[in-house]
């Protein structure tokens, strides 16, 4: 029994070490690899708390193990003294935790108010949640796009968010914590990326069938690239040359029902919004369908053949397109740079 217990203890130690040394490399949704000041504030607070927690963890487990080793019943062991309590000790372990907590509370409360502040000169972007994709609007630039939020590096961004249907939650772990998108209510979140780069985003609140596939990307660009991107997005969509496969694709787009839900600026002029992503510059986005698949002909043809196969519950119907129509449509979409 004794050896058995010892070996299990050893096993626990090994497991403990494995857990704390084995890290998950290159996790794109890593909340512990901050890439901007907001995420860094949170990260610092987390590690502060984490190490205090580890200290208490070690203390309690050590006392527990030492007690088990020291006070195990052995033959000939005298009966223990009957101690009913100790007011001094009990006060001590009431007061010390209060002091520890107070010391964490101060930076916590400060961080809460810091993170909620609207930064001066922030660029405003509207984030609208849909089952199951994120729409991004830039009111200052007149741009509407989806799945990929493009921001300038080294610039504060103020997101104004709401939902078009159920509750969603916009989360870019490397840039900031989560915030709900609520129907009928505005919520706000600040982002700030130190450098140019690509960051994964994910819907954090359970929002129905394809919740897990409601993803997005944030791409931060240096200022020159960002301005180029803005200029391109502001243009109407390119029209394909007549007689090309892309022109056939455009006809598929116009005649198969796509226009019921999608807009391509300058091709099919409508006022107001449609319920599906704006496709004017879809070719400039490398992920589609709530960033759940890559923008390549192979994945796209699967999607167009039966969207619900990839995203169960999706509002995009199976339009019963023929293989030729799909090929032409993909060719067309590929020109919408």
């Amino acid at each position, binding site marked *: 029994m004794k050896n058995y217990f010892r070996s*299990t203890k050893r096993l626990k130690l090994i497991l403990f070490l494995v*857990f704390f040394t084995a890290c*998950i*490399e290159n*996790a*794109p949704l890593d*909340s*512990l690899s901050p890439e901007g000041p907001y995420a860094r504030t*949170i990260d610092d*607070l987390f590690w502060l*708390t984490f190490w205090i*927690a580890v200290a208490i*963890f070690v203390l*309690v487990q050590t*006392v*527990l193990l030492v*007690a*088990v080793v020291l006070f*195990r*019943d052995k033959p000939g062991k005298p*009966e*223990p*003294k*009957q*101690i*009913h309590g*100790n007011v001094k000790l*009990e006060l001590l372990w009431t007061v010390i935790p209060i002091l520890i*907590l107070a010391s*964490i*509370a101060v930076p*916590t409360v400060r*961080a*809460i*108010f810091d993170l909620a502040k609207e930064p001066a000169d922030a660029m405003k972007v509207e984030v609208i949640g849909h*089952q199951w994709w994120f729409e991004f609007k830039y009111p200052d630039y007149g741009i509407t796009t989806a799945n990929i939020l493009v921001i300038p590096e080294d610039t504060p961004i103020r997101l104004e968010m709401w939902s078009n*249907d*159920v*509750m969603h939650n916009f989360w870019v772990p490397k840039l900031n*914590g*989560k*915030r709900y998108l*609520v129907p*009928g209510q505005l919520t*706000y979140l600040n982002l700030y990326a130190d450098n140019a780069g690509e960051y*994964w985003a994910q819907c954090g*609140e*359970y929002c*129905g*069938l*394809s*919740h*897990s*596939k409601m*993803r997005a990307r944030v791409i931060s660009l240096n200022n020159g690239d960002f301005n180029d991107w803005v200029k391109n997005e502001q243009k109407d969509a390119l029209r394909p040359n007549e007689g090309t496969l892309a022109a056939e694709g455009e006809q598929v787009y116009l005649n198969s029902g796509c226009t019921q839900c999608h807009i391509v600026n300058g091709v099919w002029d409508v006022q107001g919004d449609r319920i599906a992503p704006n496709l004017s510059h879809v070719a400039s986005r490398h992920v589609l369908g709530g960033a759940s698949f890559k923008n390549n002909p192979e994945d796209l043809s699967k999607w167009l053949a039966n*969207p*619900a196969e990839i995203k*169960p519950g999706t*509002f995009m*119907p199976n339009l019963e397109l023929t293989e030729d129509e799909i090929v032409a449509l993909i060719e067309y979409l590929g020109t919408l740079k």
Partner: protein
Amino acid sequence: MSEDIKEKRFLTVFKRPSSTEGIWSWITTVDHKKIGIMYGYAAFFFLLLGGLEALILRIQLAKPDNDFLSAAEYNAMFTMHGTTMVFLVIMPLSAAFFNYLLPLQIGARDVAFPRLNALSYWLWIFGGLFLYSTFIFGSAGAPQGGYLAEEIGWLGNAPNGGWFGYQPNASFKYSPGTAMDYWALGLQILGVSSLVSAFNFITTILNMRAKGMRLMRMPVFTWMTFAVAFLLAFSLPIIAIALFFVTFDRQFGTTFFLTEGGGDPVLWQHLFWLFGHPEVYILILPAFGIVSEILPTFSKKPLFGYAAIVFAGFGIAFIGFGVWAHHMFASAISPVAQAGFGLSTMVIAVPTGVKIFNWLGTIWGGKLNLKTPMLFALGFIAMFVIGGLSGVTHSIVPADTQQTDTYYIVAHFHYVLFGGAMFGIFAGLYYWFPKVWGKMYNEKLGQLHFWLMMIGFNLTFGPMHWLGLKGQIRRTWVYAEETNLGFWNMVVTIGVFVIAVSIIIFMINWIYSKRKGPEAPMDPWDARTIEWTIPSPTPVWNFSTPPEIENLDDFWHRKYDEDEEGRPVRKDMANQLLIDLESDGLNPKEHIELPNPSYFPFILASGLPFLGYAIIYRSLALAGLGLLLLLIGGFGWALEPIEEEEIGDVEDG
């Protein structure tokens, strides 16, 4: 038989049931022990179902982009897993302990309202069956206007809006079909059951204590039952009203939580967690109580700081009502509210810490007998501390906005509810096994169960901390390969199978020991509280003569004196005391009146599912049937005659 009893008889159709064996004795029983045992077995059955759901979930998540389950099936599985484990496993397993032990610990013959107690049980059973009938009758679907590539199979036709049922996703527009109605109405019935037992237990504790059993002489388990009963009484009405709103929204077109009619979906979250956070303490406090019984017994020392532990329990219960919004730090509550709820969440760590340190104080300097109940109790402390500490990190609001809705949270609350509540419950199951069955469990199998469960548990839930911090969200049907989360998910899935093996060992031990285990003595653990002063298994009448209490840990003080150093010395007459207690306990000297069995709690409870179906299927016939059963149950109950059942009437012949 007196005249008025005779008269009353004319008013009733049924005679009072008299079976003492067979299925009718169980259906009509009002004996708190039998009801406790039924709670235990039925809850364990649901534990197997909920565990099976967990296995299915983990197979799906074993590797990235897996297609073992469809999205609809996955969502139904995690919803049912959560709902089952909370409402059909941990709460009723605690109820099993409350029922069986509470009267024994306070020296009572039964609870205050025995038939009401039976009603609680049958309501719970019918609520659970109603909820699970969704797999047969229920239906789920894509949001209105959405498309599915394949039809939803039976596995997916269960509630799929999460155990938290967030609005408006759980509304009819986004969760069409009947499955979420089964959820809302099922929880409603289960809530009635808990509410009924809460008042029963409060009354029992206040009114049925034995002579000399002052409040501050009550065992800690009884104290925690008391705290839980208050938590239930105050938190369940909130969820009852909120669930009615949900049902009205889904069935009758009201818009309490729907933006399009001026309702507020965030309000649902406030109401849900205003119930849901006290619920967490409803789940964990019974385990606190169980562990507070086991640690002193197996350390041969009194509980360190009895009063502090009792007050800390009530402190936790009280503050537990003021922390609900920490489940919603990602919502748009103001920074002031965030700070307030963050601080209140920190505060709750203080009484919890007091408990943990006092438990450590209890074992420190003791003489530790590392039998299975003690192992589980020590394991409880070790695991619960981890859950408690990760809980403190949630009070750091900014950090919580990263962690909320990730696997970090899943890890946290499984350390609290499995490493905490379930370890405590297993400790209790082993500890009181001899008292309930009169047999001893197998110690070797018990220890094997403990170590396997310890390893499997940590293998399952340990890596989840890491997975969550590295970006794995909760309720995720699939995760992309590029997230690099595959390896640890596989480890987690392996861990679940280890837990499953440990549960099988537990079942083998239980079934085998109950039939073939060695006879258990009356007081196998040299215990401290008065439930051990009665023979094993507990006689129908509990105490043959009402006990009189002189001390906290009364039984211990009857067996032991203290020498001048403060070490216990077994009294000379202790052995004779045990022999006398056992023979007295088995041979009552006077008439013992026991509450009479009754059909009516069962009949009354059976009406509620029909009312539920009636709402879902808009059927007047079903409503009539349900109402009829309610009326028969209610009137039969009220007009039931009293028939004295006399036991131990041997000498009078």
